[in-house]
């Protein structure tokens, strides 16, 4: 197995939204049908430069998240390739019916980029957290759901979405995240999870910003002589069932780790596969069923035990049981 995971932290300062915007700008220059739609969100989406360089390819709708999705579906129906860049909290809630009916049901080629996802908005509270978005979007037939782990994956994912005709909801965070990958030199395929680190004692399945946490926990576990497999489930739907079942069989214990409610997200998706194919001991780590505590992402993560200390402790308990 080729090593793709980055070990020492690089202190990355580049946010995923930045990379996505730059990539879309490059692609947009070559393909006039690529459009970016914003809802007073171009700053938060890092799309200011895109708008300046390709003014004909940015569509501003104002603060109107239902309209943005409806319009995107109409544009897609007429052959455009719209990328909607709007805060994940509003996109996945205010616009959910447009997403369900106009995008998923009618199968229009709309790419929904939920920006500032999870608890990125920290102290702004529950109205601005998107901790149910994976649950609702993955329950909609015909809509794929993805979360990139870092800037390398964000780039590869957005490139892969260009030729991909299906409706997609892609969630990213607001702040720069530590790299999980060494570089973007690895094969990326929609629907194919990446095993970041091999091991046979326990598996951690993570997505998005929690992949780095999983890798750090795995490293700590290694000091204890416990070998942890780390799977990056960048595509929550369609889910890579095979990799999950194999992990259940080979490592007998699975921890899931997500910046999302413990209900209905990655953990639930994995549990649906595990329980019906090869039941093993599982732990679902995420944000409990309450309005998340006020604080910055790191504070919130620490409060709920989404950190290497807690995850490795939990893994040790499961292994030594």
């Amino acid at each position, binding site marked *: 197995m080729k090593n793709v995971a980055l070990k020492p932290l690089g202190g990355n300062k580049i946010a995923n939204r930045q990379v996505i915007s730059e990539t879309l700008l490059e692609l947009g220059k070559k393909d006039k049908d690529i459009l970016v739609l*914003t809802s*007073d*969100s171009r*700053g938060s989406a890092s799309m200011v430069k895109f708008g300046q360089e390709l003014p004909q390819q940015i569509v501003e709708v104002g*603060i109107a998240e239902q309209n943005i999705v409806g319009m995107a579906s109409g544009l897609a129906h007429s052959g455009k390739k719209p990328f909607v860049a709007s805060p994940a909290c509003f996109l996945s809630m*205010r616009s959910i019916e447009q997403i369900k009916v106009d995008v998923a049901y009618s199968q229009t080629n709309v790419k929904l980029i939920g920006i500032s996802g999870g608890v990125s*908005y920290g102290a702004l*509270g529950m109205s*601005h957290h998107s901790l149910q978005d994976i649950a609702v979007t993955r329950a909609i037939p015909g809509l794929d759901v993805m979360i990139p782990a870092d800037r390398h994956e964000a780039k590869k994912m957005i490139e892969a979405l260009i030729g991909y005709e299906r409706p997609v909801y892609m969630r990213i965070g607001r702040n720069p995240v530590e790299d999980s990958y060494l570089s973007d030199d690895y094969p990326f395929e929609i629907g194919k999870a990446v095993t970041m680190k091999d091991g046979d004692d326990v598996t951690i399945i993570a997505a998005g910003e929690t992949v780095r946490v999983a890798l750090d926990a795995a490293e700590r576990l290694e000091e204890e002589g416990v070998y942890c497999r780390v799977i990056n489930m960048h595509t929550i739907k369609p889910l890579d069932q095979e990799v999950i079942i194999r992990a259940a069989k080979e490592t007998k214990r699975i921890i899931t780790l997500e910046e999302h409610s413990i209900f209905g997200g990655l953990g639930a998706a994995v549990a649906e596969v595990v329980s019906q194919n090869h039941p093993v001991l599982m732990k679902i780590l995420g944000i409990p069923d309450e309005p998340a505590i*006020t604080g910055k992402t790191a504070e919130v993560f620490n409060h709920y035990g989404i950190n290497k200390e807690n995850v490795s402790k939990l893994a040790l308990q499961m292994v030594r049981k």
Partner: protein
Amino acid sequence: MTDVTFLKRKATEIRMTLLTMIYEARTGHTGGSLSNTDILTVLYYHKMNVDPNNPKWEERDRYVQSKGHSVESYWAILADKGFFPKEELKTFSQFNSRLIGHPNNKVPGVEMNTGALGHGLAIAVGMALAAKLDQKEYKVYTLMGDGEQAEGSVWEGAMAAAQYKLDNLVGIIDRNRLQITGNTEDLMGIEPLGDKWRSFGWEVIEVDGNDIEQLVQVFDNIPKAVDKPTMLIANTVKGKGISFAENQTVWHHRVPTEEEYKLAMEELSKQLEVLV
């Protein structure tokens, strides 16, 4: 009759408090909080019937801050009124604080949690309708942003308020002409705003939303029993009171540097000095 100078001094003090909160927390919605400070000051120190010692008093007037993001002036006022200790303002946006970056009804004095734009009006319509059903005298006020007018739900609420003849409902639009990205008219034009509301069955009054004297006048003369809800279009200046922040798009959520903070506090202190 409330002393206008008292209100003006209050508004300036609130501006100083909110700026300090934002400066210390390193986060906040500076521009919008400053543009609506005068409106909130007149509501809370002159117009509304509320009791900080009995925040759930049944006869109280209701206020719903639909533009929830500009919460700093609101927190500063609620603390100053005594709804919660002023000391607590130091926890604004800090770990585990209830004083988050939007109204939070775990805090006494706050009716409803807001933050997602386009919710306040429908909530206020419900409250005003309840007052009618219960034959209660209280009034309901809601403050919206002008960028917020692009949300379709605003207009759903607008229709319902007229349908139910809610003359106990007063909407206020903080018409500061800016939203996050820039001027409302460049992004999603809302003019002619007054005509829109009138055509939806509302009584519409335009007012200088940073002129305390005018605000007092207008709030005191809201037409009664015309079987119509009233909308105040309050023409304001985003960033009002701090010259270098006024009408500047970036000050929507810019946090002052040390230098800017000092300059701003000096400017506000001078405004206060002449108010005697």
